């Protein structure tokens, strides 16, 4: 949601994951604990920015997300 902001006051960086059966509005975004999520995937801010900056162009349907149980 664009009502969430990063430390610079800009909309918080997030990666949208479409096609999740039984869910909607799933993103990968920054967070410091599970309390930051109600279904989204939360990762450390530094990792989020690292991934986000690699995506070019933005809004390009150009990434594949692979989720594994470890």
């Amino acid at each position: 949601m664009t009502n969430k902001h990063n430390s610079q006051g800009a909309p918080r960086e997030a990666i949208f994951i479409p096609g999740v059966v039984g869910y909607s509005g799933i993103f990968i975004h920054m967070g410091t604990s599970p309390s930051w999520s109600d279904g989204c995937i939360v990762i450390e801010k530094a990792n989020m920015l690292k991934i986000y900056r690699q995506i070019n162009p933005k809004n390009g349907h150009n990434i594949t997300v692979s989720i594994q149980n470890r």
Partner: protein
Amino acid sequence: MMKKIVVISIFLFFSSSVFSTESSFLNALLNIKSEKYYKTIDGNTFYNELIEYKDLEQLYLQSRKKATKKQANLDDIKFFSFIGFVAYTTNNAAAKEALSSDFIQVYFTNRDRLLSILEELPFLIPSSCYYIAKHFGFEDKFKNDKETFIKDNKVYFTKALNKDNYKKCLSIISSKF
């Protein structure tokens, strides 16, 4: 005559925009795929969920603005609560997260109106009371404030809600998520 046409046009414009807002959330609730979100790239047709999400997000922000105004219109609060119900029912993660911060603002600015809506439309209780509960601890904020909130606000819930609705809402708010 011209004046009448202008008035009718303005009415139609507003009624169609309200209808389109409501139908967008009904589509989300019923998983109805709108034609406008189908895109074809390199011969492959797919449903663009992100664009649909962004449209819903704009409607959410407009609705939040109206519902968090002091003395907000009852229908605006109802509609924002309905958005919360749709997000809860369809497991919309990002919207639920936004509501975990935003919904409590409706309570703080329009407490009695919101509670009267929950009494009138009890199907909104599970989602609305869930968002009130989630405020406490979401993003590690206000973690220790829930007990005080319940203690200070119990009286308003008792006054506005019948026994069953009160019990249902308070048990949700008291739950740990």
